[in-house]
């Protein structure tokens, strides 16, 4: 039983504020007395490489979307340290469940530009068979759960996945990423409460980047961010500077130990800023100032890490330039390859709805194919997979 009081005193959240764990300053030096991680050179460079690759990919693909070559795009820009620093602190076999702005984690695990592009263009090599919108990546071999658009649905799924990992006894955990906007969904509450009650080895990683599309966080919650909510679930929690790769890495490393060794779920709130637009369908100039953006651009997480690497003697301006050039060239080359590849065959429209195609679905597919054969000009993608001759004719006419 809890302690009794005989006075009608209310408590409020006002007196309580969770501090932000920070290690690295913008000039690449450590804060006084800051406790950073043991990060070896090779690992630090792997993290940095993934951060730069993600930035280059994002900038090029957003441009491709503006040119009409892609239907949709979303950037990770400004949040690379939060996403990649945390993924790097995990075992590569831990499950990652992402929202959609975590392509950096996938890049860190070794997803190639070809694999990114195949999904973005929905071509025949896309693991998802061209069914989902761009940026909805998934990789079984890299333990990266396929992304879905409905916000926060992956959070209770991560709790369940982690519970299964605990029963399997493999010493693995699940990290689940979400924005501060998604944390307002009911699924967030369900997930944290169930994780605490069932002691699931799961790390809840909130990217608090200040905005959910146009909604600033002051219109998202009245409290001191997302972190204090963990206390109500009796869960371990830490807030970190999300633009500080060393702080994110160290915090996640410790969180993983709590999750895997003690079956204690953890909430990490990474304070960062969504430097880019929400998506290719959004223009942030309608709801926030240039000045605010510039202030955050000065806190660029990639630049911060670059300066730190240079201070370690692990990186130089020449190497920086060579890496940027190489990545740009590679992105362009793979994009040209991926956009030329044909779409998935029309038959893939009915596979994987169920483990086996049902008779009713087969019947509907047969009718559809007959229809497409009758009007091939109206359905060029479907017709191409039905009749190779049509594909050649397209190529002759210089079609895509």
């Amino acid at each position: 039983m809890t302690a009794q009081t005989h006075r009608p005193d209310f408590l409020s959240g006002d007196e309580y504020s969770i501090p932000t764990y920070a290690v690295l300053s913008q000039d690449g030096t450590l804060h006084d007395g800051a406790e950073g991680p043991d990060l070896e050179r090779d690992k630090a460079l792997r993290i940095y490489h993934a951060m730069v690759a993600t930035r280059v990919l994002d900038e090029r693909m957003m441009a491709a979307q503006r040119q009409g070559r892609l239907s949709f795009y979303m950037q990770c820009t400004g949040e690379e340290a939060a996403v990649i620093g945390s993924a790097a602190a995990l075992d590569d076999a831990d499950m990652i469940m992402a929202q959609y702005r975590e392509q950096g984690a996938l890049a860190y695990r070794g997803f190639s530009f070809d694999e990114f592009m195949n999904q973005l263009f929905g071509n025949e090599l896309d693991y998802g068979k061209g069914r989902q919108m761009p940026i909805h990546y998934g990789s079984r071999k890299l333990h990266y759960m396929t992304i879905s658009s409905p916000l926060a649905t992956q959070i209770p799924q991560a709790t369940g996945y982690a519970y299964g990992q605990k029963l399997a006894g493999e010493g693995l955990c699940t990290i689940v990423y979400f924005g501060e906007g998604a944390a307002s969904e009911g699924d967030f509450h369900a997930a944290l409460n169930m994780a605490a009650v069932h002691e699931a080895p799961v790390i809840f990683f909130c990217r608090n980047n200040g905005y959910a599309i146009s909604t600033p966080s002051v219109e998202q919650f009245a409290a001191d961010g997302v972190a204090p909510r963990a206390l109500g679930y009796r869960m371990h929690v830490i807030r970190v500077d999300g633009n500080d790769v060393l702080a994110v890495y160290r915090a996640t490393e410790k969180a993983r130990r709590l999750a895997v060794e003690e079956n204690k779920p953890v909430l990490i709130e990474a304070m960062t800023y969504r430097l880019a637009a929400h998506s290719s369908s959004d223009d942030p100039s309608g709801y926030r100032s240039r000045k605010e953006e510039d202030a955050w651009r000065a806190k660029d997480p990639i630049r911060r890490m670059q300066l730190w690497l240079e201070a370690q003697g692990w990186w130089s301006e020449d190497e920086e330039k060579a890496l940027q050039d190489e990545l740009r060239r590679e992105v362009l080359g793979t994009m040209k390859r991926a956009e030329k590849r044909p779409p998935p065959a029309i038959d893939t429209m009915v596979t994987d709805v169920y483990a086996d195609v049902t008779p009713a679905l087969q019947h509907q597919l047969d009718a559809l194919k007959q229809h497409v054969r009758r009007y091939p000009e109206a359905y060029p993608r479907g017709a191409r997979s039905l009749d190779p001759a049509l594909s050649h004719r397209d190529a002759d006419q210089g079609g895509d």
Partner: protein
Amino acid sequence: MPTINMLQAINQALDIAMAEDDKVLCFGEDVGGFGGVFRATSHLQEKYGKARCFNTPLVEQGIIGFANGLAAQGSVPVAEIQFADYIFPAFDQIVNETAKFRYRSGDLFNVGGLTIRAPYGGGISGGLYHSQSPEAYFAHTPGLKIVVPRNPYEAKGLLLAAIRDPDPVLFFEPKRLYRASTGEVPEEDYQLPLGEAEVTKEGADITLLGWGAQMEVIDRAVEMAEKDGVSCEVIDLRSILPWDEDTVVESVLKTGRLVITHEAPRTGGFAGEIAAAIQERCFLYLESPIQRVTGIDTPFPLTLEKEYLPDHLKIYEAIKTSLHY
């Protein structure tokens, strides 16, 4: 063969599935030590431990979200929603996540191991929120399978098939029959096929089609009609999704008449789908309009429950209307 009731049959199925495969887990509200508010999960925690049979917090979207994650990980969750009326908070997880998991990932991931059990249906003075039959909401969702058993033998065989099926299955249990329906059930392991209807009685003049608790109501109406000299063919659809069109077509091509009945409201009910499909394929053979005997388009009322339900007398009248058209 021992005679048992439907709850005992369901409990046996869960017991067999858990004994056979360590990956099978049962959970939901009050499912653990108490064994469920209807006692379907009795003794499972005792036998298989708290890690595999447990209570969850009271949060349906959490139960199904958690179950989706477990199934994606390779476990075989059997999640219970206490009443089908309370499945709606989990509608998003079921419709947007469960149903689309395999498709959207190109088969990289799936939640095929998942089974969701939920008691459904009226006739127990349950009012608005302990009586609903929500199958039609889910029947509009590709990727789900929906199964409804009519008696203990069917419940055990279909539930075992659902748990082992490679696709996620919604398993709606007619709670009015939980204890009321008894019958001989083999103690051993057996399965009944999903996606297949069963002709439970052959006849020549008219086809009667239903599922779950409506099957015994149909039987009472058929008894009355047969006294009038009408030969009735009776079909238990068993699976709402995917449903066995061919068996129904074959029957209607023979009888030329069809009465479909379900407890759920008429508009948007699954009888509408069946009627449309059958008129497409049996147009020249139909001798009268397809009759639908269903709940009326209201919330499920308490005091007037008897009047609301599509009982045997309403079905009997539909048979006569069809025959005298």
